[in-house]
């Protein structure tokens, strides 16, 4: 399908059209850039990178799996049909990674429903929006979007990724544009990390880790969760909840009787990195990490796993 051209004068009108078809989510500049549900399309920004990723729209931080009243259970499924505008390729790839976990042999119905009707309008990175970006090393695929907007001064070139996307832009003039692959200054050089499992650098570099879980909260592919009940005060009804959890917390691996399998901070930190760079890849053939850099950007003690791995010697 041919790319299309949209004049920036027409941009807001195009966004209005999107908004009329579902719940529009896009980046807005507030104290920081955030993805938000849009009421006023003029608030949308194409600058910068939202600190918090898109995962909350597919499996919210606290989510009711079902409600119960006495012994009757009612499953809770998503109500909104989201249209995402402004997702960068790292965030789009992150959804593709999560799809493999949540739509695999045991599909998660909530996630499945939220993703099924979900429309994704990406925003190409001409230059990386953040100095922590290192997506060039992570083998991102140029897919997963319905449309991809590429800023070209007066106009947007729009790359078409699906029939649904094409239907939105087929009246626009055609363009021959092909986006350049994203180049990042920061790179992860060591991507074969099996030999680094036992390495002194983990302890040394992760000493300042607070086990706060900022990295897992900000990571677009971290979606581990806890399961618990939230009863109504009258105790005859309530909801079973999944809530984002973090492998960085000490009690994450705690079993009955109190034993904790990953007791040391550096073991927990290493586990996350190995999941992102090795375990997931062993299973699905690609990195779970998409190089967005948020876990580095948002770390209160500025631990940089890319530099840690780059510094390790075979």
């Amino acid at each position, binding site marked *: 399908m041919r790319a299309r051209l949209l004049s920036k004068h027409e941009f807001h009108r195009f966004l209005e059209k999107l908004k009329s078809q579902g719940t529009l989510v896009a980046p807005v500049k507030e104290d920081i850039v955030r993805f938000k549900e849009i009421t006023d399309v003029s608030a949308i920004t194409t600058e910068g990178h939202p600190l918090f990723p898109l995962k909350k729209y597919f499996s919210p931080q606290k989510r009711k*799996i*079902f409600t*119960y009243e006495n*012994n009757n*259970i009612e*499953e809770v499924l998503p109500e909104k049909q989201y249209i995402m505008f402004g997702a960068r390729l790292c965030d789009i790839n992150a959804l593709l990674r999560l799809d493999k*976990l*949540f739509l*695999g*042999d*045991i*599909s*998660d*119905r909530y996630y499945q429903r939220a993703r099924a009707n979900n429309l994704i309008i990406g925003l190409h990175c001409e230059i990386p929006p953040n100095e922590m970006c290192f997506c060039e090393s992570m083998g991102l695929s140029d897919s997963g979007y319905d449309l991809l907007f590429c800023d070209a001064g007066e106009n947007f070139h729009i790359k078409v990724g699906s029939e649904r996307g094409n239907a939105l832009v087929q009246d626009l003039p055609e363009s021959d544009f092909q986006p350049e692959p994203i180049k990042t200054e920061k790179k992860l050089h060591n991507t074969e990390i099996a030999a680094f*499992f*036992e390495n002194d650098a983990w302890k040394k570099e992760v000493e300042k880790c607070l086990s706060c879980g900022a990295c897992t909260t900000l990571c677009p592919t971290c*979606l*581990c*969760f*806890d*399961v*618990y*009940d939230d*009863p109504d005060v009258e*105790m005859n009804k*309530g909801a*079973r909840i*999944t809530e984002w*959890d973090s*492998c960085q917390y000490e009690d*994450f*691996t*705690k*079993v*009955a*009787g109190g*034993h904790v*399998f*990953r007791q040391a901070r550096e*073991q927990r930190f290493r*586990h996350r990195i*190995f*999941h992102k760079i*090795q*375990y*997931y890849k*062993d*299973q699905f053939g690609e990195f779970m990490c998409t190089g967005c850099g948020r876990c580095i950007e948002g770390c209160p003690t500025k631990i940089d796993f890319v530099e840690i791995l780059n510094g390790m010697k075979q």
Partner: protein
Amino acid sequence: MTELPEIATVDDIKQQTTSEYLIRINKGYKHDPGQFFQISLFNIGEAPISICSYDKNYIEMSIRSVGNVTDKLNALQKGDTIGIRGPYGRGYPMHDFKDNNLILIGGGSGVAPLRGVIQYIEKHRDDYKDVHLFFGFREPKEMLFKEDIESYKEKFDVHLTVDHPDDHWKGNVGVITKLLEESRVSNENTIVFLCGPPIMMKFGLQTLEKMGFNRDQVYLSFERQMKCGEKKCGHCMMNGVYVCKEGPVFRYDEVEGLSEKW
């Protein structure tokens, strides 16, 4: 998560020790020995519980009070309801063991899933040759399935030991690995089930190696905090392996290289 719990009635609940109860649900679930259910009580929460029976008409679970959910489960009365989903995980591939001798080594709560294995063996007795049971408990009063174990003595080669005897205990005292070594059971044509606390499995493996057992003759069962049972919540991951789905039963050579197994 995708599987919702169904409501089941507790058809029987029996106290076994000061902290352990046996709960029975008169409903059949197709399962393998070694698999587990997610059992829940509304308002309280959910916990993974291994199956300790093998019967097409009912399931039994031995529950040890170690937290909120299990404390409340053990306070249930006959006729109360629970939420149940599963069975989950990979159990023991009993078919693969046909015509073998079987050695079941259990420590403490680890005896529970092995009781399911024994019930399977009893229903398929001709499929297996000699069956040896090695069970260890901390104290005589912590012994699970006392009556069952008495009946096993008539059918199988049974070895029992406790760490701390009381005045009435006349049997063996000490670690289970010692009994195992002294028994001089043959490693030929034999499959070993090892289920218990990490420390017991660790020493058990050393003893078995000394006795000439290969890694592919030994099956281990791992305990992890499975929150979902569906390879999603991440809690049970052992290196890159989801214990809830790929386990909890593993052949030793499948997990030997995983540093996070203990």
